[in-house]
């Protein structure tokens, strides 16, 4: 079953997104550690989209969907207008982050560490970012 959640681009809504992801994944008996990593990756993707593609405009909406197939989780961020393509960004090294006192840039590293793939596609005139993660058996 595919769960879906439509949300405005205010970073105050990140908390609700985390609750949605936890609620969607808990019934599948996935380990708490894997759930927490998925929650983190989706939080990072959502906040990037809200901040960098929508300037936190609460009236701009995007849709999150999450689906568990037998050995993997598929999450999609579906956006009518905008896209924030993390593959287009070079990951700063930890050293660069320290010396430049940058408070951003870590999120992309987290997403790439946690998820197995991050793909972008156009579908029915919408921008779709599709993230997948293979589940470890518990």
């Amino acid at each position, binding site marked *: 079953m595919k769960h879906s959640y439509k949300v405005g681009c205010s*970073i*105050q809504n*990140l*908390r609700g997104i*985390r609750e949605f992801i936890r609620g969607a994944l808990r019934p599948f008996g996935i380990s*708490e*550690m894997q759930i*927490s*990593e998925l*929650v*983190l990756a989706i*939080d*990072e993707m959502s*906040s990037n989209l*809200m*901040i960098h593609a929508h300037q936190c405009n609460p009236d701009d909406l995007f849709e999150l969907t999450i689906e568990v197939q037998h050995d993997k989780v598929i999450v999609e961020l579906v956006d009518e207008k905008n896209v924030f393509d993390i593959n287009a960004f070079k990951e700063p090294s*930890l050293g660069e*982050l*320290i*010396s430049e*006192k*940058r*408070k*951003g*840039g*870590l*999120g992309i*590293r*987290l997403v790439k*560490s*946690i998820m197995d793939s991050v793909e972008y596609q156009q579908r029915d005139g919408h921008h779709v970012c599709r993230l997948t993660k293979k589940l470890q058996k518990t």
Partner: protein
Amino acid sequence: MVQIKRMQQDGTDIIIPVGEIDAASSIELDLTIAKSISEGNTRILIDCTGLEYISSAGLGVFMSYIEEMQDKNIRMVLFGLHHKVANTFNILGLNRLLTIVQTKEEALQAVKA
């Protein structure tokens, strides 16, 4: 949502974030650490026993002070991280850049070292 308490113990400033630190709430942590440094504290503990979640925005706050703290001879030690919160630090290898210990006693020792 995060609530941040502060207390002083034997000349050590203890910052206690309770709740979740994300892109919306990381500013609170940032302001609290900045305030502690501006007050001249050189020993800062971060009590993470009430920290339920941290995203990159919060991790970035800790990272952004590493250099300033080295320059000013300030020691910062984190302790009491929940398993899942510790995992977030470990994914990025921040456990090697920051001083992280288990208990408050260890933290009080480490911050004096």
